């Protein structure tokens, strides 16, 4: 998070800084971390939705709970692939 905050402020502050930021973000280690970060975000979002459903007492039995947790994992990978491809 500190890195994202810094990068965001830095890129907004001037033209030169923005181009420098783009160069940094364009390297493969940063891109890999970016993909991982996007996956973490999407997984967090879908898992949150699953917990909301569980709170509403939907899918509370063991079979459904296990199935939905696997679905969350799968869907998060698929959505990540779509988002990364789109970017």
């Amino acid at each position, binding site marked *: *998070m*500190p890195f994202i*905050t*810094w990068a*965001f*402020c830095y*890129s*907004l*502050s*001037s*033209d030169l800084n*923005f*181009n420098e930021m783009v160069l940094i973000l364009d390297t493969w280690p940063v891109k890999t971390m970016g993909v991982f970060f996007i996956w973490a975000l999407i997984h967090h*979002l879908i898992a*949150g939705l699953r917990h*909301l459903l569980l709170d509403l007492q939907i899918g509370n039995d063991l079979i459904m709970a296990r199935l939905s947790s696997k679905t969350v994992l799968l869907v998060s990978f698929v959505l990540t692939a779509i988002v990364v491809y789109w970017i």
Partner: protein
Amino acid sequence: MNIKWIKKPFGGMTQWIYQRFTALFMVIYLLIMGILISNHHTFNYFDWISIFDIWSVRFGTLIFFYLMFFHAWIGILHITEDYIKWFAIRRAVNFCFLVMIILQLLILSFYLIK
């Protein structure tokens, strides 16, 4: 005056409700920003700055970061409560996270309001 009413306006549901509504705002914000950014065919500094020149985007971004750090802060409280048994250490770790969050919010506010 009853301070508990301010700290926990929804009783035991307070943190649960905060987490869900901050999450809702953040999802909507990210979707709108995704649309705004993908509307630009080229992407240089002036496109980037023009997005954040819109008053409502600037304001929404500021709210987004405040809510995000609030969401994260509740999450951190839960994690440290579960995994750090020693009270003094837990308080110290929480304090470190709080300082980090407040510093980042100050920096973001400075850049976005300027």
